[in-house]
């Protein structure tokens, strides 16, 4: 009886301390998700009363000229580029940090500092860097004889590498670097010693030992990075290109924002949010399924 009372007491305290998370989840995540599903079936200009329209928003989304397909294409391109860039650059930096060199703390600090900068501030900085006439990047290129430098953010091809470069300095990449850095320290030293005895070089060790050992972490970072890229695209692209040039980078999160808060088309925007929610979920599931054959959990 005493144990049961003690258990109830502990449970109450546990729920008490967990309640901030529950409240936060319900108010800021769970509630809005449910509201989005409901609002996606309405026509609502924010100020008036929502009007039930059934699936009309979803029909409009997939009709010709809606822009949704273009936004979906832009989102997928950005996701592939940003995840690839973030994974490779963060792993590269983590490997560098794994070397036993002097001033490692300083290097770790320097690599991570850009990641704690607000992404919007960083985007504005890169807007100046990429400026065609007055940007430091094109100035640098002109100094090595490249005078026909690209209009980085206003060219449908070069805008994507530009966004890729910005991705290297985002929080997502910095976070991945720390996770990879921790994972690399967990690789059993005896495996490397065995490689050394076999005469393997650095790259052979990396491909055949390091990568398999940290493959669960790579999967984790790919999944989290993918999910993040669907959402974080907004904070980079909105200040940097605002969806341009010619809607080339008008990703779904930006389309959602424009429809909801700039065009006051909340029903349609909610439908976009629902589809984005389903896409993110589906991509994560597919990634886990595919990874079963390539991830080493031993």
């Amino acid at each position, binding site marked *: 009886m005493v144990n049961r009372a003690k258990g109830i007491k502990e449970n109450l305290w546990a729920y*008490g301390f967990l309640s901030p998370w529950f409240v936060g989840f319900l108010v800021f995540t769970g509630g809005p998700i449910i509201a989005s599903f409901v609002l996606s079936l309405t026509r609502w200009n924010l100020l008036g009363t929502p009007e039930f329209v059934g699936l009309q928003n979803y029909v409009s989304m997939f009709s010709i000229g809606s822009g949704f397909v273009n936004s979906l294409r832009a989102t997928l391109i950005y996701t592939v580029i940003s995840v690839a860039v973030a994974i490779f650059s963060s792993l590269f930096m983590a490997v560098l940090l794994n070397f036993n060199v002097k001033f490692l703390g300083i290097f770790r600090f320097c690599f991570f500092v850009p990641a704690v900068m607000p992404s919007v501030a960083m985007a504005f900085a890169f807007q100046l860097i990429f400026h065609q006439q007055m940007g430091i990047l094109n100035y640098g290129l002109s100094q090595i004889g490249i005078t026909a430098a690209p209009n980085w953010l206003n060219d449908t091809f070069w805008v994507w590498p530009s966004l890729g470069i910005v991705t290297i300095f985002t929080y997502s990449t910095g976070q991945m670097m720390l996770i990879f850095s921790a994972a690399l320290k967990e690789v059993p030293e005896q495996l490397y010693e065995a490689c050394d005895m076999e005469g393997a070089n650095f790259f052979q060790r990396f491909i055949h030992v390091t990568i398999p050992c940290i493959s669960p972490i790579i999967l984790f970072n790919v999944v989290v990075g993918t999910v993040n890229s669907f959402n974080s695209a907004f904070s980079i692209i909105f200040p940097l290109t605002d969806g341009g040039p010619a809607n080339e980078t008008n990703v779904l999160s930006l389309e959602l924002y424009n429809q909801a808060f700039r065009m006051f*088309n909340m029903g349609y925007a909610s439908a976009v949010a629902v589809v984005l929610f389903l896409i993110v979920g589906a991509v994560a599931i597919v990634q886990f399924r595919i990874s079963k054959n390539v991830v080493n959990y031993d």
Partner: protein
Amino acid sequence: MRNLLKVRNFVIAALFAIMLSACDTGTSGTSGDSAETVIRFSMWDIVDETAPFIQAFHAANPDIRVEIVGIPEDYSTVINTMVVGGTAPDVILAWEVDMPRFAANGNIISLDDFVAASDLVDVNDFMPAVAGLRDMTDGLYGIPWVYAGHFLYFNKDMFDAAGVSHPTANWTWDDMATAAQALTIRDGATVTQWGITAIDFPGIWYSLIGQGGDLVVDENLNLSLGNGLRRALEFQNRLTNEYQVAPQPGAGAAMDLFSAGMAAMTRQGNWFVAGYSDLPFNWDIVPLPGDAAVHTSLHTGFFTINSASPNQAAAWRFIEFLMSHEGQTLLSEFTANPSAMMSVAAEGAFRVQGENGPTNWAAFDYFNNYGRFTYVLLNATVTSNLVSQFDAVLLGLTDIDTVINVEVPNAQAQLDQLN
């Protein structure tokens, strides 16, 4: 008893969590000093309570204190969100496109009774284009604070160095293009001085289209874009790609080649007069050159009162002061924009004289003669998206026929959906 205490502690913990997640709604009301009423006022300029027009109001109305809600970016988006969330300020400076929406949805109140009882606000004194905006609502829901249009700014020193005559009020597009070619300086393949900057403000595009002969927006608030748009796109394309005297459009307006001394001309709103007051070279303003027509798109904003405000009487006293002769004079000096009231505008308080320019204050007259409210009456995102298609023509990403035959109808369809 102990169990009750445990339950109480749990309830306290849960309530604390709920309190943490609660948000401040930012409502106005009466301050600790019960004699002082606090009202909140939103505007897009970055100002604080030390602004002369606020200080003058406080001096004349010690029982009311104005708190500024500054929203420098995405103003319309933020204000609409605040209105929906019930946190909008007492006095909302509303965009032309928002004011009728707010009125139709009951978010702002009619000012007819206030105006009828006021000795300070004379609604018959508004310039004609501004007065015409009253037809947008059934009754008076907003009072225009000031108005603005667009100019051609030019660097006198560059013109003189190149031996090119200064622009005049009678300039045409061809005159501007010829001058831009003479003023562009190249070092091999690199342009070191541009004849004219790219268009980095949507309003300039719509002024250009109006000069091309289009109405831009008809009396039913539908897009009216055709040959004027074609002429505008062809002209700007010539400047950018054929003559290469204007740079390609860039993302954002972070860099101003004109103020940096890298371009001889730029087309901007008249509010840049204040921003350019400390330029280190001699400069001046003229009306935008005409083509099929002389035209500038006009801008304004409306003082409105939030229908949810508990301090509507105090809010009106603030608006009444700002629309008085003293208030309009202070606002004109502060914003470098002419008063919408003709009697005040005629006194020229908007003339913010810089060290090296401008001198041609008569250029402001063409706002009254040739200005119309056009694209600002439509959803800003739709018109901005259309501008990104205009830019796409200059970047070689699309063609003029596609813009006119596909993108303009798409934009109109989006506007129809919003109405």
